[in-house]
């Protein structure tokens, strides 16, 4: 393999890994803290991508989807906000707004799901899993009904549309943007967990949530916050992934599968584990996809996951007892 191939594979792997991290971090924290494996996490990722795409094009003046609000730009003009129009005409601004909108919708969706559906079922964990799987199904059907079956493409904003030459290969700026975004979010999440009061509560809750409750902290509220933040992170990841992988109703499941592999390899409830696992899985996938087909690459990854489970069921950085409970 030539040097340029290796470099481009590594860049591709890091990019994929960062996206996996955004899903796996929430998945892992939610499971670590409240023993809920959220099978709807990939669906939330997908919703984030759809929302961001919609907001981006809607602000740009295009009608998007059947049931969605009319283009915003004429409304702004009617209200006499010429400055607003000029602002949203800039694709970079629109892109930032779209990313934030995707993330915020994820936070709201996560909070709503936890409050209305997960919370009543804490005493019946089996039904929690059954519910989240059903939720994944409902969300993807909902998306199909609102946005249709066809995949969409979110264009890259002007500032990130160019490519740069790295070792004789053109690499889009967008990949570097995703890698940087992943690093920043890792640092933010890590700092949140290590340096803030909420983080201390979360880490204590991962170890023993009943004890935290007994010490007079409203753990249920922390549950809601973590679920919402995890969902927000996933939706934000989906929004950021949209220009990179395209938007389709099936994207949720395939990313979720990789995220599952990440958390099994990295270990449930550990953010560094999720980060290392994401990079491993992303790089392995990029390498395997270069030599073999992407389909076979996925199969190999699942084999890898089976191997980790057989040798070290708690994962590489597992914060939980062996093999769950």
């Amino acid at each position: 393999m030539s040097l340029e191939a290796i470099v481009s594979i590594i860049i591709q792997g890091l990019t994929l890994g960062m996206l996996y991290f955004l899903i796996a971090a929430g998945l892992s924290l939610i499971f670590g803290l409240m023993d809920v494996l959220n099978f709807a996490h990939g669906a939330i990722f997908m919703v984030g991508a759809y929302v961001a795409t919609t907001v981006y094009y809607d602000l740009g003046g295009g009608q998007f989807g059947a049931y969605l609000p009319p283009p915003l730009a004429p409304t702004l003009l009617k209200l006499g906000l010429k400055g607003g129009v000029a602002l949203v005409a800039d694709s970079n601004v629109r892109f930032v707004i779209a990313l934030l909108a995707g993330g915020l919708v994820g936070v709201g969706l996560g909070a709503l799901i936890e409050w209305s559906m997960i919370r009543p079922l804490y005493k019946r964990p089996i039904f929690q899993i059954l519910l989240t799987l059903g939720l994944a199904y409902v969300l993807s059907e909902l998306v199909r009904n609102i946005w249709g079956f066809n995949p969409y493409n979110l264009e890259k904003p002007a500032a990130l549309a160019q490519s740069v030459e790295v070792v004789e290969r053109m690499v889009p700026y967008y990949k570097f943007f995703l890698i940087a975004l992943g690093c920043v979010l890792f640092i933010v999440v890590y700092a949140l967990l290590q340096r803030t009061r909420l983080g201390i509560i979360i880490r204590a809750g991962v170890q023993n949530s009943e004890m935290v409750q007994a010490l007079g902290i409203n753990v249920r509220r922390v549950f809601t916050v973590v679920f919402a933040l995890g969902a927000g992170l996933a939706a934000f990841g989906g929004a950021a992934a949209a220009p990179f992988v395209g938007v389709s109703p099936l994207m949720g499941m395939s990313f979720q599968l990789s995220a599952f592999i990440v958390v099994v390899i990295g270990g449930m409830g550990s953010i560094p584990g999720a980060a290392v696992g994401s990079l491993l899985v992303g790089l392995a996938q990029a390498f395997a996809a270069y030599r073999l087909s992407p389909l076979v690459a996925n199969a190999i990854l699942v084999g890898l996951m089976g191997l980790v489970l057989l040798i070290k069921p708690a994962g590489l950085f597992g914060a939980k007892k062996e093999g769950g409970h």
Partner: protein
Amino acid sequence: MKDVQGAGVRGQGAGVRSQEAGALKKLVRKLTAQWFSLALLAMALLLPVLVNKFYLGLLVEVFVLAVFALSYNLLLGYIGIISFGHAMFFGAGAYVAALTLVRIPWKNLTQSWALPRGPELFMSVVPLLVIVLGVLLITGLLGVLIGIVTLRVRGVYFAMVTLAFAEVLAILAASSELRPFTGGDEGLHDLPVPAWISPTAQRVLFYYLALAFLVSMYLLVRRIVNSPTGRVLIAIRENEQRAASIGYNPFQFKLIGIVVAGMIAGLAGALHALYLRNITPETTLGVGRTIEALLMTIIGGVGTLLGPVIGAIVNRLLGNFLADQPLFRTTWQLILGIGYILLVLFFPYGIVGTWQMRRLDVRGGWRRLVRLVKR
């Protein structure tokens, strides 16, 4: 031991022979305890006279799905493990059946439309026998393999890992490398089903075949659940450590459960392939198939014998009815999904579970169901 099972009132073997004077009376009582199942069966037997071919076809699908749900319920309801990869057995069965028909050069499979006789009958039955044996062998092996790996982990990990394995199988079946063999993501089409059981020309015969399949699988599952092995499975569901401390190896019994459930699901998949004559990776191996089984089991009642069957009937007929309404033409799956979520939230015992709760002494049934649900 008699009543450990969440739903263990019905059917302690209706065919028990006894020399006592009240034997006949006992039999009658046992049969009347089964009145609902028997009424359903009688109705199913009479239906070909009453309804047209289209509905018979719909019912064939219902029967196939009911068997699939029965096998899923064996895992979820009686062993208490959540598999999100059960579709892999269904799909494996479907693919074994399809590949047997397509890749082996059978002679004169689809030519004579009349019921064959003599040596011809033998020759046209052989492919079906090969399918049945092949399905049992392949799904059995798959079950052992998957079981050995996945049973090392529990609970959500088990759900996750089984999902991953099923997806891998779907990915492999759809991969372009295997296209010459499996047909890639388009699957296999126009399977040469033997003419004498052609699902289109011999619809009524096929209907009775599917019905017989459902009834025999129902009886088989009932037999398993009421057997000593089945009792151990239920004991493991109730309290695995206790079952282990009594001296039963939970791993062994769970493995048996997975293999048996996998084989039954595989047979259902094979019949599915024979009926539709078209299979794709997404519709046989995809996670949607597992969700469907889950849906039917929950609708009917987890851990009840008749539940999955009722669930399959309700789910499929309701889905078909909704899809027929202009208002719900595109949204019926969404509506079923929302219905499923509401069911899990507010009505987790399903139709049969709730019915039995009403029928049993209320307190005892409640306690059993709460124990079943709160694990």
